[in-house]
């Protein structure tokens, strides 16, 4: 059963190759940097480009208003001073 799952996964991965290369071309052409997972707020849409404080930028002492912030750990680059 396990072998069947492994083989099925490898077969599906190979089958998805064409669609992925099409997406990869789009990423290269538009120079995209992030996945479109949480488009609700700028810092969740583009976490890799976000400012250190962008989750809290509305006013001093503001909290992160995007609900997705709970599920989105801050990148290590933003955790170091």
């Amino acid at each position, binding site marked *: 059963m396990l072998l069947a799952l492994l083989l099925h*996964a490898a077969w599906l*991965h190979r089958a998805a190759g064409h669609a992925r290369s099409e*997406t990869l071309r789009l990423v290269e052409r538009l120079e*995209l940097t992030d996945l479109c997972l949480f488009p609700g707020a700028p810092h969740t*849409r583009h976490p890799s*480009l976000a400012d250190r404080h962008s989750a809290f930028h509305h006013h001093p002492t503001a909290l992160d208003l995007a609900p997705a912030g709970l599920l989105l750990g801050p990148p290590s680059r933003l955790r170091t001073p």
Partner: protein
Amino acid sequence: MTFIARHRRLLTLACSAILRHRTRHVSILLVYTALVFLFASVVFCVEALKREARLLLQGAPEIVVQRLVAGRHEPIPAELVEPLRRIPGVQRAAGRLWGYHFDEERRVNFTLIASEDPRLAPRAVAVGRGVARLLGAEAGGRIALRGRGGEEVSFAVAEVFPSASELVAADLIEMPQEDLRAFFGIPEGLYTDITLRVANENERRVVASKVRGLVPDGRVILREEIARTYEELFDWRGGVLLAVFASLAASFLLLAWSQAAGLEEEEKREIGLLKAVGWELSEVLALKTWEAITVSLTAFLLGTALAYLHVFAAGAFLFASLMKGWSVLYPRFALDPALDLPQVTLIVSVAVVPFLLASVIPSWRAAATEPDRLLRQA
């Protein structure tokens, strides 16, 4: 009797013992399978998303240069492109123009990005599937966005990106640079950020440090950092889920331990009889280990197969919003199976080994007791 023949007989005995106590074993098997299913689902989801991010972000620019003012991301002057292009090792430097548009009516954010694609005529756009779904747009149709002056700006939809690209482009609206400048009111001579292509991996850090010298008020983001961001992001989310499941797993192990520790009278009598007729401690232990292996491997295989179907055939419906993301404009994408031996090993080591220990140790303690004492206890 050969080693294999001896263990084959022990396995047969173990199976018949499991069938004799089927009520207890079936209840353990059901809970155990459910736990393996949840754990394997999280592992499959996290690994599939991480691999997808890794493969797709291979096309991202090697270096992104942003300008910061008062700690915030601000447009960067176009005159910096040329000095950055002249840094040794840089193949290409280009200004990138993009921004967010919040649609008040639908309460959704779109990402608008400028391109030099000659196929896009003025006032024509290419849109992601998510945008097309939300605005009811299709190739050949039109969409209207509210401009910064409050007026409706209409665009012809030249293309809808293929559905396979939703993971990166669901909320994208691509338009000619002049249109984007006019829409956002960004004057000529400014870009959102500058991207650099540096083919030689060993030169990237050196180039990045030179960029920092040229743009002291800037922030330099390397592609490796982007990739690491996504690795951490999915690990974080997987961790959030696993923290919830950890209490379930602990309860189950406690249950398995207490079940095994308080061996039923019949089982104690069995162990006592086996020892009384001359079975060695190691043989009793082997029998009990085979029982635990049979239960745990059945639960492992069932749980893993169900998790595979749940994540890759049913779209991980139980916790898709938690693992993938959620918003008004939500990308629809199927996860590509990323099942490999390291994942299987991880599931085995986390799900099978603790159960084996929780089951075998109490049996070992019972088997180490004198047979007459065991029979009297029973």
